[in-house]
């Protein structure tokens, strides 16, 4: 058995559009250890969500996974998910059972025309070899209770529009957890929720991680949440991982100028040094036919002529701490 349950290497997911090729994910590399959480952080549009969908092979047309490896170790053998077709039996078998996902907008991610129960039952029964309605219902009810859904019996027969955002997200988590997956991908699960509900949801995920020996890929743009949730962090910018390492390494010794910028733009409670909050200048460019240069060079404070000459590679500066910059 491998130390890592999931290793993503040089993943490429491109969208061929009329106007050019959108390189949404262009060389993403990270590894996820068993029972740990990796936080993927970056501004909107940097390719976080596309990375998540690439792992599940649910990238929407016209996007396609065009290269790299997604090595998944189910405990008995190692499979490269890039080799499977999106709608293949193997991929469908993994989805929802081995690897589950929860989404940014809980309300919109539940189909409006079916009850919560119907959608959960379907998620269970699609992976049952012998269809057993009773067992499926028991599993669903147990999970609804586990996520702390108020009045689970009644909510089982409720439609999404009859529930609050927080309840919907609990339902989404129950739906994702009902098959006890080994990996949970959480794509900004708390962005659309109130702050108090946010804390409840992250606590819930941490609890499940312990109870079910689960690994989590936590995608967010919120540095605060990531510090609390993650064991390791991968910082993404313009379709690439620009820095990755343990939480400690990233927060105490950030090496990439983008990571530093991100950390400086984060307010710290009780900070009395009088340092001003920093904004990273400029906007994230759109990776439509991007030039062969360091993606961050248009906004980088330490730019040199070298930066426009090519794409820097991901270098290991200390064990487990990787940085993509010419100047480290």
């Amino acid at each position, binding site marked *: 058995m491998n130390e890592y349950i999931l290793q993503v290497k040089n993943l490429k997911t491109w969208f061929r559009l009329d106007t050019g090729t959108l390189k949404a994910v262009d060389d993403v590399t990270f590894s996820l250890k068993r029972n740990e959480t990796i936080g993927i952080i970056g501004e909107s549009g940097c390719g976080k969500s596309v990375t998540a969908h690439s792992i599940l092979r649910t990238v*929407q047309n016209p996007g396609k996974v065009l290269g790299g490896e997604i090595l998944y170790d189910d405990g008995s053998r190692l499979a490269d998910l890039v080799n499977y077709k999106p709608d293949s039996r193997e991929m*469908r078998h993994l989805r*929802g059972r081995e690897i589950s996902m929860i989404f940014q907008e809980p309300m919109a991610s539940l*189909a*409006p*025309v079916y009850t919560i129960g119907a*959608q959960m039952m*379907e998620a269970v029964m699609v992976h049952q070899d012998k269809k057993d309605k009773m067992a499926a219902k028991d599993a669903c009810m147990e999970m609804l209770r586990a996520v702390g859904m108020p009045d689970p019996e009644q909510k089982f027969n409720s439609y999404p529009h009859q529930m609050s955002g927080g309840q919907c997200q609990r339902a989404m988590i129950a739906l994702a957890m009902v098959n006890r997956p080994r990996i949970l991908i959480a794509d900004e699960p708390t962005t659309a929720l109130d702050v108090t509900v946010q804390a409840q949801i992250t606590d819930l995920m941490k609890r499940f991680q312990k109870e079910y020996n689960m690994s989590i890929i936590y995608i967010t743009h919120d540095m605060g949440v990531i510090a609390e949730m993650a064991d390791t962090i991968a910082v993404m910018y313009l379709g690439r991982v620009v820095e990755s390492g343990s939480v400690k390494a990233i927060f105490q010794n950030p090496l990439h100028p983008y990571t530093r910028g991100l950390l400086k733009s984060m307010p710290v409670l009780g900070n009395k040094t009088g340092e001003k909050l920093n904004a990273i200048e400029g906007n994230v460019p759109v990776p439509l036919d991007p030039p062969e240069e360091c993606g961050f060079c248009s906004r980088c404070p330490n730019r040199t002529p070298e930066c426009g000459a090519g794409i820097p590679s991901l270098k290991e500066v200390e064990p487990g701490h990787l940085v993509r910059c010419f100047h480290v």
Partner: protein
Amino acid sequence: MRKYIVKRFIYMIVLLAIMSVFAFVVIQLPPGDYLTSYIASLQQQMGEVDESVVLNLRKQYGMDRPMWQQYFLWMRNMFQGNFGESFQWRQPVKTLIATRMPMTIVLSLITLLFAYAVAVPIGIYSARHQYSIGDYVASILGFVGLATPSFFLALILMYYSNRYLGLSVGGFYSPEFQNAPWSFARLWDLCKHLPIPVIVIGLASMANVIRILRATLLDELKRPYVVAARARGLKENKMIYRYPVRVALNPIISSIGSILPSIVSGATVTAIVLDIPTVGSLLYNALLSQDMYLAGACVIMLTAITIVGTFISDILLVVVDPRIRLQ
């Protein structure tokens, strides 16, 4: 839910009432009243008409009373099953309508079912394979379908089926079955006569449904719940039918409200061209000969089909959409 249905029901009744006023106005619109033309036709047939007969008729139809009283008299008669007399056919309007109404409803229903049966699969295909050759063919057909007046399509189909297939077109039955009692042979004869009118009337509606469905599905396919369902491990085909198509049923059903009037409209023109005995062609003849009581009754009947049809589609919507059901 019950409140919703009751509300729609009351709304339907109100619409029918307004419609009856409109039909009454139609009856009154032509220069000279109905009786003038009726008496004229009587005179033509039997020479001089006695003054007392005229007075009697005036009284019977309430012509000596104010307009609003005439309307209520007309309505009261209608509720008692008395729709007035058609002077052109020399028959009660009620009998004329009764013989044509069932087939008019059947024809509209079959056309509606046909339009949806063809349009739904095409719409789903077009949305799932956006910008594919099939999608282009479907949208070009849709454009042509919307651009061809139904009577013109009827003419073209008549020309070709007459010339190359030797089919008798027009009417519901071949002459030998016209007045025959019901039998399998007669039913089969009817089936042979139905395709052309059904295609002619249904084409534009089909094109409309394809457009609506394609646009809705394209929207729905991008929604997070579709991605979520896919991420749950469902087979793609099954997922499409269970989720986005199921959600798109709502706009499809509400489109009945706009499709049905256009089918009844198209059926009217087509029935005239193909000489099909429906209420539509009856209305046409009635209008041409200023047989206004008949015309008014036809207008009421035709609009009643769409109003009642829309009401039924509203009810269907309740069954299909929990968001309305649980309001």
